[in-house]
């Protein structure tokens, strides 16, 4: 059965399915980048972290037979890459944007280098929760196959939003991002705060990569990522540096990405690729609308290198 038998209803259904499936890596990468940027640092290298996460998760799952161990290792690898980025950027006069691009190249290169032996064999995948058991329509059942990581992602977004607002640690992260002087006045170590925030952000991105190789599309190859790591930066701006809005924005980006193929399946093929550009045009429009010649984008942490 294909979508055409459901008529036009297939389009929103496919978008829902896409939003849930495609958005999970976006949720992890963008919530992680959100934390990093709130601490006043930008990490453009998450693309490399994501691919390294995908490779290490797949390799570990293949060797150990346990996909969840793979997810854990991916988080660890992401943590290390995040710490590397933070450590380098902490040196005086080092540009964090260029370093991020350098680490993006390093991470993807290293993943393809070390991951060469894992391209052929098939690793065990993560399993999903069947939330569509009540329906007899296969599309609905398929759309409601929800992976555990999606739920973990939602919880992390909520937890981060709460922690930033209500905990002492959250306050220090926000201070490090808004004003180094204020953070120093409170006796907080800006460097250590950013190191922790960037490392955790990297760990999130690693898990996002694990989802790619262990669930959807569920294999390891050199085209595993279609730029989700770099897109996260756009997503965080789109969400104006709020973890919960990052989650909604990730759903929206996922759904928008699914719109093209869904329309194609009901026979609308022209302009299909222009829909893919929609999230970026929207992000750019939001930046234009919320900035002015006098100040940078609203809600942008003041210490970000791109806010100056």
């Amino acid at each position: 059965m294909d979508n055409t038998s459901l008529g036009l209803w297939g389009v929103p259904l496919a978008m829902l399915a896409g939003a849930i499936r495609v958005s999970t890596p976006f949720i992890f990468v963008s919530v992680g980048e959100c934390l990093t940027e709130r601490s006043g640092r930008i990490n453009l290298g998450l693309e490399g972290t994501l691919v390294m996460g995908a490779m290490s998760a797949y390799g570990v799952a293949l060797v150990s037979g346990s996909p969840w161990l793979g997810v854990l290792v991916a988080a660890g690898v992401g943590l290390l890459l995040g710490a590397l980025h933070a450590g380098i950027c902490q040196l005086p006069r080092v540009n964090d944007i260029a370093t991020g691009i350098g680490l993006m190249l390093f991470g993807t290169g290293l993943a393809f280098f070390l991951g060469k032996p894992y391209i052929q064999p098939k690793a065990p995948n993560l399993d999903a929760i069947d939330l569509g058991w009540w329906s007899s329509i296969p599309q609905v059942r398929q759309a409601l196959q929800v992976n555990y990581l999606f739920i973990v992602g939602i919880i992390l977004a909520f937890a981060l939003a709460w922690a930033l607002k209500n905990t002492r640690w959250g306050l220090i992260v926000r201070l490090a991002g808004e004003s180094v002087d204020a953070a120093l006045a409170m006796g907080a170590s800006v460097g250590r705060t950013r190191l922790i925030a960037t490392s955790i952000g990297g760990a999130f991105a690693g898990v996002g990569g694990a989802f790619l190789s262990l669930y959807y599309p569920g294999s390891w190859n050199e085209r595993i990522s279609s730029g989700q790591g770099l897109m996260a930066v756009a997503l965080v701006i789109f969400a104006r540096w709020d973890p919960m809005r990052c989650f909604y924005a990730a759903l929206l980006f996922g759904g928008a990405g699914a719109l093209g193929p869904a329309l194609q399946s009901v026979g609308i093929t022209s302009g299909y690729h222009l829909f893919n550009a929609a999230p970026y045009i929207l992000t750019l429009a939001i930046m234009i609308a919320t900035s002015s010649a006098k100040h940078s984008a609203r809600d942008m942490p003041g210490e970000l290198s791109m806010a100056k």
Partner: protein
Amino acid sequence: MTASLERIAVPALALLASAVVFGLLLAIYAHVDPLEAFALMYQGAFGSWFSWQNTLTRAAPLILTALCTALPARMGLMIIGNEGALVVGGVAAAAAGIAVTNAPPLIVQLAMAVAAMIAGGAWIALAGGLRQWRGVNETISSLLLTYIAIALMNHFVEGPLRDPSSLNKPSTWPIGDANMIGTIPGTDVHWGLVYGVVACGVIWLFQRFTTWGFAMQVIGGNPKTARMMGLDVGRYVLLACGAGGAFAGLAGMVEVAAVHGKANASLAVGYGYSGILVSFLARHHPLAIVPVAILLGGIGASGGLLQRRLDLPDAAVVVLQGIIFVAILASETLYGRFKFFRVKEG
């Protein structure tokens, strides 16, 4: 004089450190003798006339895309949308080439170059203009524009400009063999290399010897001072971004008119992102861009030999490039730290 010695010593130290890290990776993970690997890399990059041609061909697009970051960087702007400018340039070149395909080849080539440079220039000038008049961060807007450019390319390549006979890899109609820009006589290296080297030379002369070039340097040093001097900052921002984008667009035209013969997804293979790093490694200096691009082109060219002789994955050279970039960027912090290089006063 000691300061200029430092400028060579610090990057050399970073390169040495990168080689050690990469060598350890090869020795420990791949069980390959690092010295043998480095010897092979030298052979694959610069060891023969054949290797040199491969290296120079790879360097050509990097020189042109690096200018897209280097020119605005002189004025304190950080553009990373090189890939997008290259892609729109390539599509515009293909469209122009198809439109006037029956004209004399020289006219077609000129039309392609002009179309590519206008498209790429407008693309980056948009990011510069948004920064100047709306306060939109140019780094992020140029990155977003890259994604929009790739979507536009896919739209044109699979839609209005598609050659129906390109089944497996959707492409535009070919521009025709007669209209290709060809290779430098006596070599297999295409003319894109000459475009790049000439562009770097002209820009250096411009920055060094013209009032406009000096004005840009003043703006990069301190925009407030520049405004108080009565300089029209906005105009120079548009000029620098537009020119930078135009060169990246020209890189796209070269890819179409010298390599592929048509526009397709092969345009977006990362020359733009590598160009950013070439510009940073050259510290945005137009004359330094050429040797840096040749060095990186050489590392890329040596991948094939490493794969054939030592059975290393072709990504090995990408790892080395990544390590070099990170090491050199991190080495920025070393300037002024060594007492040895400090100029003695009094």
